């Protein structure tokens, strides 16, 4: 997959050099959607899986899928019927995991590639800068996975967020702990360890606030930088404080180091919660899943019954990746793409204002969701009010759904076992 990435970048650079600037509608009548993801850098795994998920989405819209067509109108193939059967062309750009690169790529996609709309950009900090460029140019920006609260608090008119946000997760964790407390588990001493960019800081503070409201006190709060080469001091600090509940908000490289270091220093809490991201990275789950048995997590993906939308998409995706299933990050990217495709179809135009109006009028039912949401409907700030997430637990190298009750496929087992 990295091969394609490089080639895409090269082609992009070559096109730029030759001055081949195309309008939003390419000559063959395809609609261009700009996609900004971390295709290199420390979150490249997540970015590349999301890229494949979006390619699956575009393929379903452009070429159709017989089974999905019964459940989703746009899966009949032949492109977007509302837009003269225009096919969708994805233009990928690498944000390298940095806000500056994300900003530059957004600008390039808008001014050089002339994309009709943007999707991206995984890291909250990068989405923050990239979407600001889209706002300035009046181009719709659909975000699938960045959860920092402030993204929808900027009064933006062109920003739409499909994913559940930090507050939703904080409530899910708090509800989970309430149940555990009622069952007699110790939850008095809570520690929060978070990476210190937009994502970790904002989700961390939302959790602390929500917990305070619900009567849980976060006694220890440790911030660290995600590119740390060593996390032993943090784990030693935790070992000394010995909290009952430990919550991680981490990206992949640090998730790996924490997992390894906790085992090295032989310390674990009674309940360990990880807020998605690094601990959900397929590369992490595959190699270190067995070292975090019993870890509590959240997810937007639950494969559900055979023949359901998530199940069918998952099958196509698994074939494409050669065995890796849809996961929390890739499914949210895919859902964002489907939302944008639906809006483009209803807009019947590549004019930004019409796409924006169509996005505002979005009302997708739960039955068409590939992610585990109750539907998609945006409020005035551009936040999807029907977003939801499930609580999962790591069991035998795989995450299973344990809450809410109506979606659970297994009972929770505690205390945290680890390795």
């Amino acid at each position: 997959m990295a091969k394609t990435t490089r080639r895409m970048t090269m082609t992009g650079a070559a096109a730029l050099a030759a001055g081949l600037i195309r309008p939003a509608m390419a000559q063959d009548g395809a609609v261009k959607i700009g996609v900004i993801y971390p295709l290199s850098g420390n979150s490249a795994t997540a970015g590349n899986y999301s890229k494949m998920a979006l390619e699956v989405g575009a393929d379903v819209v452009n070429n159709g899928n017989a089974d999905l067509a019964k459940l989703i109108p746009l899966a009949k193939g032949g492109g977007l019927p509302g837009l003269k059967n225009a096919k969708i062309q994805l233009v990928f750009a690498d944000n390298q995991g940095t806000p500056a690169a994300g900003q530059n790529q957004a600008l390039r996609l808008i001014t050089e590639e002339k994309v009709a709309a943007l999707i991206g950009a995984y890291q909250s900090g990068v989405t923050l800068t990239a979407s600001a460029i889209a706002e300035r140019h009046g181009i719709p920006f659909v975000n699938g996975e960045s959860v920092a609260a402030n993204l929808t608090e900027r009064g933006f008119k062109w920003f739409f967020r499909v994913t559940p946000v930090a507050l939703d997760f904080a409530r899910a964790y708090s509800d989970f702990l309430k149940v555990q407390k009622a069952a007699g588990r110790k939850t008095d001493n809570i520690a929060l360890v978070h990476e210190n960019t937009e994502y970790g800081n904002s989700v961390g503070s939302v959790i602390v606030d929500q917990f305070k409201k619900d009567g849980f006190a976060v006694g220890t709060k440790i911030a660290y930088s995600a590119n740390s080469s060593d996390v032993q001091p943090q784990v030693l600090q935790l070992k000394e404080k010995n909290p009952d509940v430990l919550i991680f908000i981490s990206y992949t490289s640090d998730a790996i180091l924490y997992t390894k270091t906790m085992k090295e220093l032989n310390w674990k809490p009674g309940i360990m919660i990880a807020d998605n991201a690094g601990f959900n990275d397929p590369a992490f789950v595959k190699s270190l899943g067995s070292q975090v048995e019993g870890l509590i997590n959240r997810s937007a993906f639950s494969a559900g019954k055979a023949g359901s939308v998530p199940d069918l998409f998952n099958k196509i995706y698994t074939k494409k990746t050669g065995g890796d299933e849809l996961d929390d990050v890739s499914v949210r990217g895919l859902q964002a793409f489907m939302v944008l495709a639906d809006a483009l179809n209803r807009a019947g135009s590549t004019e930004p204002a019409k796409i924006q109006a169509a996005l505002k009028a979005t009302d997708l039912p739960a039955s068409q969701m590939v992610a585990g949401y109750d539907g998609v409907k945006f409020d005035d700030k551009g936040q999807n009010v029907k977003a939801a997430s499930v609580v999962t637990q790591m069991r035998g190298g795989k995450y299973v759904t344990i809450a809410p009750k109506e979606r659970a496929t297994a009972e929770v087992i505690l205390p945290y076992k680890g390795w």
Partner: protein
Amino acid sequence: MSLTLVQVIVSGLLLGAVYALFSSGLTLIWGMMNVVNFAHGEFVMLGMYSAVMVWTALGLGPFAAAPIAAMAIATLGVASYFLLVRHIMRGPMLAQILGTFGLALFLRYAAFWYFGANFKTLPDTLVGGSFSLLGIRFEGARVLAGVMGLAITLLLHVVLTRTAIGSRMLAVSEDATAAQLMGIRPQRMQALAWAMAGASTGIAGALIANFFYTSPTVGETLAIIAFVTVSFGGFGSVLGALVAGLIIGVVESLSAFYIGPVYKDVVVYVLFVLVLWFRPQGLMGKT
């Protein structure tokens, strides 16, 4: 002294020895030819991938991986010297910097293309897991890397200062023309320096891979530490890199534990600036 404090210091010392291990190759190249190898982090990264490949293909641990990685990266070092460095050394300083920087980008993205972006990790059982000694926790892989770090930096130091071949290498670094008049072939000595640097860097990578994650961009994270260690200890001084590595490791651990992990770099860099203020040549560098 509390047990936790001892643990923090022990962890820091082991970390520092590892820093010294992967910095020694960088300082060797500088000392020999006044060239900063900006692709050093990528050399470490490829050493790490060697270990990952030895594990996935042969199922063998670091004792097989280290020599294989040493040979692989030594070959890469010699190839880089003959194909690139030898030529850019004739150019201006800027060409040298951009030349090895270009090599770094080339290697990094070649790794993306060949290995993919996914993070790889090795099982901790390869080096006997972890154990307790007098209440202090030790991780086998870190102890091995730390001990090898000490051994290799000392060995390089002895070779450079106590052997005939070392004297010849130093002669070339001091005055290549004069050395040539004495019957020493500068290119051969410089290629040897790249081979030695490559070998130690390859071993470093193969040992670090056992307790770290491996990815195409891991070189960036490690290279910064290597540059700080080397300029702290004095460019060109292998022993300096060892002392600097140990100081940085302990200072990082203590400040991360007592002040907070986000501030540890501040403490390290303030110390770094102070050292350069009073000793611009680094702790043990030549003036």
